[in-house]
């Protein structure tokens, strides 16, 4: 057990080893570990950001879904209202058209009745004139007697 020049030798060995180990082993290894740690931290941060973005997107989607649901509800309500209005309009229109058709029919019926009355009047007048000619046996003034008969028949029809 003595202190001698071995001490100097051990100084040199130790300091050389310290410097070389720092340069060759510690620094590159530590850099790699630091880089890995940073990469992992960045990955974790990205994952956290992703989760946050997903939560935000979910919240946005829920909001948009709610908005879409309310809008759809509004559209459905509006459509229902419009359908009711259209239905009401159609019913009114149909009623008006029915009334118009009935009125037109009534008018046509009235004109047909009037025309039939006229035709019948003329036929009755002709028949009466022919009958009178046979009874009397003479030729009567056709135009004058026909006017008289028409007036009588018309009086009769009007009375009827």
């Amino acid at each position: 057990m003595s202190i001698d020049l071995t001490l100097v030798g051990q100084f040199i060995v130790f300091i050389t080893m310290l410097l070389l180990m720092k340069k060759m082993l510690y620094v590159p290894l530590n850099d790699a570990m630091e880089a890995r740690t940073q990469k992992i931290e960045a990955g974790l941060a990205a994952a956290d950001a992703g989760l946050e973005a997903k939560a935000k997107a979910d919240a946005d989607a829920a909001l948009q879904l709610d908005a879409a649901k309310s809008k759809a509800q509004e559209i459905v309500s509006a459509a229902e209202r419009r359908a009711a209005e259209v239905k009401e309009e159609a019913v009114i229109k149909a009623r008006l058209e029915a009334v118009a058709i009935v009125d037109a029919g009534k008018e046509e019926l009235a004109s047909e009745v009037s025309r039939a009355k006229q035709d019948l009047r003329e036929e009755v007048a002709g028949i009466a004139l022919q009958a009178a000619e046979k009874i009397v046996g003479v030729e009567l003034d056709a135009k004058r007697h026909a006017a008289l008969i028409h007036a009588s028949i018309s009086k009769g029809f009007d009375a009827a």
Partner: protein
Amino acid sequence: MAAEEHSTGIAEHLQYWTYSFQQNLPVDERNPFMQIHIDTMLVTGFVACLILGFSAWLKGRIVEGAPTGAQNAVESIVGFVNDTVKDNFPVHNPLVAPLALTIFVFIFLCNFFDILPAYLLGHIAEGLGAPAFRPVPTNDLNLPVAMALVVFALVLYYEFKLKPIHFMKDLLLQPFASLLLDSKNPVVKFLGVLLIPLNLTLKLIEELAKPLSLSFRLFGNMFAGEVIFLLIASLLLVDNMHDLMSFGGIVSEIMGLLVGLAWSFFHMFIGLLQAFIFMILTVVYLSIAHQPVEH
């Protein structure tokens, strides 16, 4: 008689392979400092080459991705050292962690040589012509002292660099003079000045105790371990075949093997523990040197 021979054998085994730079002088007149322990230098050189060769090999294979194999193992050690330094060190110093790593790995590998059979390397070296051979360099006081002095020099350097005034005041005025110099009484003040050399002496003893305790703790543990190894190994030594085959001889051999095996495991733990203690104390001493001054 046999015991005396064994003790002589142990004492011979504790000799270093020494080379004197004053070969021309008689042995009595040689300066004991002017010699070198060739065995210590060879083994530490071998360990250093081993570590540096491994470092160079690993450097080209370091990957930033998931580590495997040797990188994984070394990263575990580096991570452990980094954590130890971070837990104990108040500021960042790029030298402390590499220093702690070097100390831990170097001491552990030097201590690891103790697991070899006690007389093996000595006998091999004798066979090759060496007069003696000590395989464990931490048993040589020169290695622990060299490392402790490096640590001590770094502590002094950082003390002077980071807080020179505080350190000088601490060196000259603690523990006695500070209170006395604060007094308004001139006699007490003068007494305080007289006490400065005593303070300086006490402080120097306190500071020098750090590297001394650091080095002697490692040296003492490893030296005692080696002596116990040699004592256990001496249980296995018998004079002749008749003694070996006797009841006592067989019991002695079995006991020697079992005790030797148990001590080997325990001593490996001691070696690891001593490497850790040296490393952690280095970090703590440097941490104290980096502590900010309290006002």
